Protein backbone atom coordinates (compact mmCIF):
# COMPACT_ATOMS: atom_id res chain seq x y z
CA UNK A 1 0.00 0.00 0.00
CA UNK A 2 1.29 3.48 -0.85
CA UNK A 3 1.12 4.94 2.66
CA UNK A 4 2.11 8.52 1.87
CA UNK A 5 -0.45 8.77 -0.89
CA UNK A 6 -3.24 7.49 1.30
CA UNK A 7 -2.46 8.77 4.82
CA UNK A 8 -3.49 12.36 4.09
CA UNK A 9 -7.10 11.21 3.56
CA UNK A 10 -7.31 9.04 6.66
CA UNK A 11 -9.25 10.37 9.68
CA UNK A 12 -7.06 10.96 12.72
CA UNK A 13 -8.87 8.31 14.75
CA UNK A 14 -7.89 5.56 12.30
CA UNK A 15 -4.33 4.28 12.59
CA UNK A 16 -2.99 3.02 9.23
CA UNK A 17 0.04 1.45 10.93
CA UNK A 18 -2.15 -1.51 11.91
CA UNK A 19 -2.68 -2.52 8.27
CA UNK A 20 1.01 -1.96 7.54
CA UNK A 21 1.94 -4.27 10.41
CA UNK A 22 -0.51 -6.90 9.20
CA UNK A 23 1.09 -6.77 5.76
CA UNK A 24 4.52 -7.17 7.31
CA UNK A 25 3.27 -10.15 9.30
CA UNK A 26 1.36 -12.06 6.67
CA UNK A 27 1.56 -10.13 3.42
CA UNK A 28 -1.36 -8.66 1.54
CA UNK A 29 -3.24 -11.96 1.83
CA UNK A 30 -3.61 -11.77 5.62
CA UNK A 31 -4.44 -8.06 5.59
CA UNK A 32 -7.01 -8.52 2.80
CA UNK A 33 -8.66 -11.47 4.53
CA UNK A 34 -8.96 -9.65 7.84
CA UNK A 35 -10.30 -6.51 6.17
CA UNK A 36 -12.78 -8.60 4.16
CA UNK A 37 -13.96 -10.37 7.29
CA UNK A 38 -14.43 -7.07 9.08
CA UNK A 39 -16.34 -5.47 6.22
CA UNK A 40 -18.91 -8.25 6.54
CA UNK A 41 -18.82 -8.89 10.26
CA UNK A 42 -18.51 -5.31 11.49
CA UNK A 43 -21.85 -4.37 9.94
CA UNK A 44 -23.48 -7.51 11.34
CA UNK A 45 -22.25 -6.68 14.84
CA UNK A 46 -23.65 -3.15 14.58
CA UNK A 47 -26.98 -4.59 13.43
CA UNK A 48 -26.95 -6.88 16.46
CA UNK A 49 -26.35 -3.91 18.77
CA UNK A 50 -29.17 -1.96 17.13
CA UNK A 51 -31.62 -4.88 17.26
CA UNK A 52 -30.59 -5.69 20.83
CA UNK A 53 -31.33 -2.12 21.84
CA UNK A 54 -34.75 -2.25 20.16
CA UNK A 55 -35.64 -5.49 21.93
CA UNK A 56 -33.99 -4.58 25.23
CA UNK A 57 -31.61 -7.52 24.87
CA UNK A 58 -28.65 -6.12 26.78
CA UNK A 59 -26.56 -9.33 26.74
CA UNK A 60 -26.73 -9.28 22.92
CA UNK A 61 -25.69 -5.61 22.91
CA UNK A 62 -22.83 -6.33 25.30
CA UNK A 63 -21.53 -9.35 23.37
CA UNK A 64 -21.64 -7.66 19.97
CA UNK A 65 -19.96 -4.52 21.33
CA UNK A 66 -17.30 -6.67 22.98
CA UNK A 67 -16.48 -8.38 19.68
CA UNK A 68 -16.25 -5.03 17.91
CA UNK A 69 -13.64 -3.74 20.38
CA UNK A 70 -10.98 -6.11 19.12
CA UNK A 71 -12.23 -6.63 15.55
CA UNK A 72 -12.09 -2.90 14.78
CA UNK A 73 -9.04 -2.33 16.95
CA UNK A 74 -7.00 -5.03 15.19
CA UNK A 75 -7.33 -3.00 11.96
CA UNK A 76 -6.64 0.41 13.47
CA UNK A 77 -10.24 1.53 13.95
CA UNK A 78 -9.61 3.30 17.23
CA UNK A 79 -12.84 5.34 17.36
CA UNK A 80 -15.07 2.38 16.53
CA UNK A 81 -13.20 0.29 19.09
CA UNK A 82 -13.44 2.98 21.80
CA UNK A 83 -17.15 3.57 21.15
CA UNK A 84 -17.77 -0.19 21.25
CA UNK A 85 -16.06 -0.23 24.63
CA UNK A 86 -18.39 2.54 25.85
CA UNK A 87 -21.45 0.63 24.60
CA UNK A 88 -20.26 -2.55 26.29
CA UNK A 89 -19.77 -0.67 29.58
CA UNK A 90 -23.21 0.95 29.29
CA UNK A 91 -24.80 -2.46 28.66
CA UNK A 92 -23.00 -4.03 31.63
CA UNK A 93 -24.09 -1.16 33.89
CA UNK A 94 -27.61 -1.25 32.37
CA UNK A 95 -27.42 2.43 31.41
CA UNK A 96 -29.74 1.86 28.49
CA UNK A 97 -30.58 5.53 27.96
CA UNK A 98 -26.96 6.35 27.05
CA UNK A 99 -26.72 3.69 24.32
CA UNK A 100 -28.75 5.34 21.49
CA UNK A 101 -26.38 8.32 21.34
CA UNK A 102 -23.36 6.01 21.40
CA UNK A 103 -24.97 3.89 18.68
CA UNK A 104 -25.46 6.95 16.50
CA UNK A 105 -21.80 7.90 16.98
CA UNK A 106 -20.49 4.40 16.27
CA UNK A 107 -22.57 4.12 13.09
CA UNK A 108 -20.93 7.33 11.79
CA UNK A 109 -17.49 6.13 12.87
CA UNK A 110 -18.12 2.75 11.25
CA UNK A 111 -19.07 4.41 7.94
CA UNK A 112 -15.79 6.34 7.91
CA UNK A 113 -13.83 3.24 8.94
CA UNK A 114 -15.46 1.06 6.28
CA UNK A 115 -14.74 3.69 3.65
CA UNK A 116 -11.09 3.70 4.72
CA UNK A 117 -10.91 -0.11 4.67
CA UNK A 118 -12.53 -0.36 1.24
CA UNK A 119 -10.01 2.14 -0.09
CA UNK A 120 -7.15 0.30 1.59
CA UNK A 121 -8.33 -3.01 0.17
CA UNK A 122 -7.78 -1.70 -3.36
CA UNK A 123 -4.12 -1.06 -2.55
CA UNK A 124 -3.35 -4.26 -0.66
Amino acid at each position, binding site marked *: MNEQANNSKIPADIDPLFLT*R*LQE*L*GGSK*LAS*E*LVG*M*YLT*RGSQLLDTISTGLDTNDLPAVK*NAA*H*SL*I*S*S*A*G*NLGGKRV*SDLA*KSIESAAIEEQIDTIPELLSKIISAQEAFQQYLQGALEHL
Partner: protein
Amino acid sequence: MKRIAVVEDNPDNLMLVEAILGSLYEMVSYENGIDALAGLPDENVELVLLDISLPRMDGVAVLESMRLDDKLKHLPVIALTAHAMVGDREKYMEKGFDEYFTKPIVDFNALIEMVERMIDQKH
Protein backbone atom coordinates in the same frame (compact mmCIF):
# COMPACT_ATOMS: atom_id res chain seq x y z
CA MET B 1 7.63 -27.97 16.83
CA LYS B 2 5.90 -27.33 20.16
CA ARG B 3 2.12 -27.22 20.25
CA ILE B 4 -0.03 -24.54 21.78
CA ALA B 5 -3.78 -24.05 21.88
CA VAL B 6 -5.94 -21.00 21.38
CA VAL B 7 -9.56 -20.81 22.49
CA GLU B 8 -11.21 -17.90 20.68
CA ASP B 9 -14.69 -17.49 19.20
CA ASN B 10 -13.96 -14.34 17.21
CA PRO B 11 -12.75 -15.56 13.77
CA ASP B 12 -10.65 -12.51 12.97
CA ASN B 13 -8.89 -12.64 16.34
CA LEU B 14 -8.22 -16.34 15.79
CA MET B 15 -6.80 -15.69 12.32
CA LEU B 16 -4.53 -12.98 13.70
CA VAL B 17 -3.24 -15.09 16.59
CA GLU B 18 -2.52 -17.96 14.21
CA ALA B 19 -0.67 -15.59 11.88
CA ILE B 20 1.46 -14.26 14.75
CA LEU B 21 2.31 -17.62 16.33
CA GLY B 22 1.69 -20.17 13.59
CA SER B 23 5.24 -20.13 12.18
CA LEU B 24 6.69 -20.77 15.64
CA TYR B 25 4.24 -23.29 17.08
CA GLU B 26 1.85 -25.94 15.91
CA MET B 27 -1.53 -24.44 16.67
CA VAL B 28 -4.65 -26.19 17.94
CA SER B 29 -7.76 -24.02 18.04
CA TYR B 30 -11.21 -24.19 19.60
CA GLU B 31 -14.16 -21.84 19.15
CA ASN B 32 -15.56 -22.43 22.62
CA GLY B 33 -14.56 -23.66 26.05
CA ILE B 34 -16.63 -26.83 26.01
CA ASP B 35 -14.85 -28.12 22.91
CA ALA B 36 -11.52 -27.06 24.39
CA LEU B 37 -12.11 -28.98 27.62
CA ALA B 38 -13.10 -32.05 25.61
CA GLY B 39 -10.18 -31.87 23.20
CA LEU B 40 -7.24 -30.49 25.15
CA PRO B 41 -6.46 -33.58 27.28
CA ASP B 42 -5.45 -35.47 24.11
CA GLU B 43 -3.55 -32.68 22.38
CA ASN B 44 -0.31 -32.52 24.39
CA VAL B 45 -0.05 -28.75 24.19
CA GLU B 46 2.48 -26.65 26.11
CA LEU B 47 0.28 -23.62 26.74
CA VAL B 48 -3.25 -22.30 26.24
CA LEU B 49 -4.31 -18.83 25.08
CA LEU B 50 -7.82 -18.48 26.47
CA ASP B 51 -10.33 -15.81 25.53
CA ILE B 52 -12.44 -14.60 28.46
CA SER B 53 -15.70 -13.78 26.67
CA LEU B 54 -16.70 -17.09 25.16
CA PRO B 55 -20.21 -18.34 24.35
CA ARG B 56 -21.93 -20.75 26.74
CA MET B 57 -18.97 -21.07 29.12
CA ASP B 58 -16.69 -18.10 29.75
CA GLY B 59 -12.92 -18.26 29.99
CA VAL B 60 -12.85 -18.08 33.78
CA ALA B 61 -15.13 -21.13 34.04
CA VAL B 62 -12.99 -22.95 31.46
CA LEU B 63 -9.88 -22.19 33.52
CA GLU B 64 -11.56 -23.45 36.70
CA SER B 65 -12.41 -26.73 34.95
CA MET B 66 -8.86 -27.03 33.60
CA ARG B 67 -7.43 -26.66 37.10
CA LEU B 68 -9.55 -29.61 38.23
CA ASP B 69 -8.35 -31.85 35.38
CA ASP B 70 -5.18 -33.84 36.12
CA LYS B 71 -4.08 -33.63 32.48
CA LEU B 72 -4.60 -29.89 32.17
CA LYS B 73 -4.09 -28.35 35.59
CA HIS B 74 -0.35 -27.67 35.16
CA LEU B 75 -0.67 -25.94 31.77
CA PRO B 76 0.20 -22.25 31.64
CA VAL B 77 -2.87 -20.29 30.59
CA ILE B 78 -2.76 -16.76 29.18
CA ALA B 79 -5.97 -14.72 29.35
CA LEU B 80 -6.52 -13.20 25.92
CA THR B 81 -9.08 -10.50 26.42
CA ALA B 82 -10.59 -7.19 25.39
CA HIS B 83 -11.33 -6.57 29.08
CA ALA B 84 -8.65 -3.94 29.47
CA MET B 85 -9.92 -1.60 32.15
CA VAL B 86 -7.81 -0.58 35.14
CA GLY B 87 -7.74 -3.51 37.55
CA ASP B 88 -8.73 -6.16 35.00
CA ARG B 89 -5.22 -7.65 34.85
CA GLU B 90 -5.15 -8.10 38.64
CA LYS B 91 -8.69 -9.49 38.60
CA TYR B 92 -7.86 -12.23 36.11
CA MET B 93 -4.48 -13.04 37.64
CA GLU B 94 -6.27 -13.54 40.97
CA LYS B 95 -8.62 -15.97 39.25
CA GLY B 96 -5.65 -18.15 38.38
CA PHE B 97 -4.47 -17.10 34.93
CA ASP B 98 -0.71 -17.21 34.52
CA GLU B 99 -0.57 -14.15 32.29
CA TYR B 100 -2.85 -11.59 30.69
CA PHE B 101 -2.74 -10.16 27.17
CA THR B 102 -5.13 -7.54 25.86
CA LYS B 103 -6.97 -7.28 22.55
CA PRO B 104 -6.85 -5.61 20.14
CA ILE B 105 -3.38 -7.05 19.65
CA VAL B 106 -1.13 -4.05 19.17
CA ASP B 107 2.32 -5.54 19.71
CA PHE B 108 2.82 -8.87 17.94
CA ASN B 109 6.32 -9.36 19.38
CA ALA B 110 5.06 -8.87 22.92
CA LEU B 111 2.66 -11.79 22.45
CA ILE B 112 5.43 -13.98 21.00
CA GLU B 113 7.75 -13.10 23.88
CA MET B 114 5.06 -13.79 26.48
CA VAL B 115 4.28 -17.22 25.01
CA GLU B 116 8.00 -18.11 24.81
CA ARG B 117 8.57 -16.99 28.39
CA MET B 118 5.61 -18.94 29.76
CA ILE B 119 6.69 -22.12 27.98
CA ASP B 120 10.29 -21.69 29.19
CA GLN B 121 9.06 -21.24 32.77
CA LYS B 122 7.07 -24.45 32.48
CA HIS B 123 10.22 -26.49 31.72
